[in-house]
């Protein structure tokens, strides 16, 4: 199998408050440098949609906002080290990375 060298094409699905804030589609296609990590996906997301800067991760600390979750491939990736590789299915665009507002507030 050929080694992929160019940017990966990653699908990201945003929740309603974020795609309305960014005035974009709910599902986006982003070009992300390899290896594909959460940090690189969010970097690409914020570069493409600057209105989302600070909405997914804290501006000061760079950490995921506590009530934002990341799901893909039926797995909760929220606590994955943001520098670790995302699953191949996400990096290859077969499965989207879901950005989810946590169920909270009763």
């Amino acid at each position, binding site marked *: 199998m050929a080694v992929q060298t160019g940017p990966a094409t990653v699908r990201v699905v945003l929740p*309603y*408050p*974020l795609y309305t*804030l960014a005035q974009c589609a709910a599902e986006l296609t982003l070009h992300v440098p390899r290896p594909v990590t959460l940090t690189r996906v969010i970097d690409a997301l914020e570069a493409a949609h600057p*209105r989302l*800067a*600070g*909405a*997914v991760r*804290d*501006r*000061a600390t760079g950490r995921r*906002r506590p*009530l*934002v979750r990341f799901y893909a491939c039926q797995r909760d990736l929220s606590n994955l080290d943001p520098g670790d590789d995302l699953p191949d299915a996400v990096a290859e665009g077969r499965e989207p990375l879901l950005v989810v*507002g*946590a169920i*909270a*507030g009763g």
Partner: protein
Amino acid sequence: MPRIRVLVGTRKGAFILTSDAGRRDWAVAGPFFGGWEIFHMAGSPADPDRLYASQSSGWFGQVIQRSDDGGLSWNPVGNDFAYTGSPGTHLYYDGTDRPWAFKRVWHLEPSPSDPDTVYAGVEDAALFRSTDGGATWQELPALREQQGAKWMPGAGGMCLHTILLDPTDPQRLYVAISAAGAFRSDDGGASWRPINRGLHSQYIPDPEAEVGHCVHRIAMHPARPGTLFMQKHWDVMRSDDAGDSWFEVSGNLPSDFGFAMAVHAHEPDTVYVVPIQSDAEHYPPEGRLRVYRSRQGGQAWDALTEGLPQQHCYVNVLRDAMAVDTLPECGVYFGTTGGQVYVSADAGDHWQAIVRDLPAVLSVSVQTLS
């Protein structure tokens, strides 16, 4: 023909209420930013079509929105509120030291002369300023040098909720913080001093400490900026020396606990408060929603009830949810946690509900448009 525009921030979006000078028939627009908390909206006195809104969410953080057409359209501007240098720590409820961390913008105060200059009071308590229409924000860090390590959050968070700009002296600013107290700068924010002498707060270890008082609101009349009125956690206070000393003017109020406060647009000694039962019972005494007005700068207060519910009313009126217009017959406005926004077109004598079923109202500000 003058018009009135009322900017209402709620738990689930923003609303804009407009009327002619009669203030009887209102158009309601919104929700804007539906689902988001709108802590405050404010219009620029220098350009009334320039509006700012603080939009926030426990999930997705802070957004600052700006409109250049009186609220018809909005665009996000800068939301990077970075404390200057290493911000250090403040006290937390449990007595531990916590690093300063930005959470949200409570209050926006546009400059009276420049539409692009606006101040933001934030949680954790600090004052920021933008001079480019909200695109970028810079902290005025000397404020937190006023014993900031001793500041502790109030129950609603450690918020800088009140910003007053002296219209006669561009170098003079006042701010109030829960639960640190009131502070004044006489040099445009380069340096600050606590102005809490005369406050007495039994809920802190030293009731007369220099900082640590839970100030809920400060109000000023633009024609007499050296006189300040304060609604404290308990006690309604007054200062006639720009905050250097305070004395109590609670007088005959049924409760001197409360949040909101406003001064009549044309009568510097006419002050409005909404008494709340207690810090444990955030609703009007006896279930009767009453605005109290003093025409002599405090101490003697009259209940204003005409048109307000006088039974079974258990709403609150939050600190930023009362304002006045500047029409010749001063209009007074306030919003409740029950979603009502009330107006009085005759300085408080008679009230009517503009809307009754909005989400909980966090803030009300008023523009008088020519």
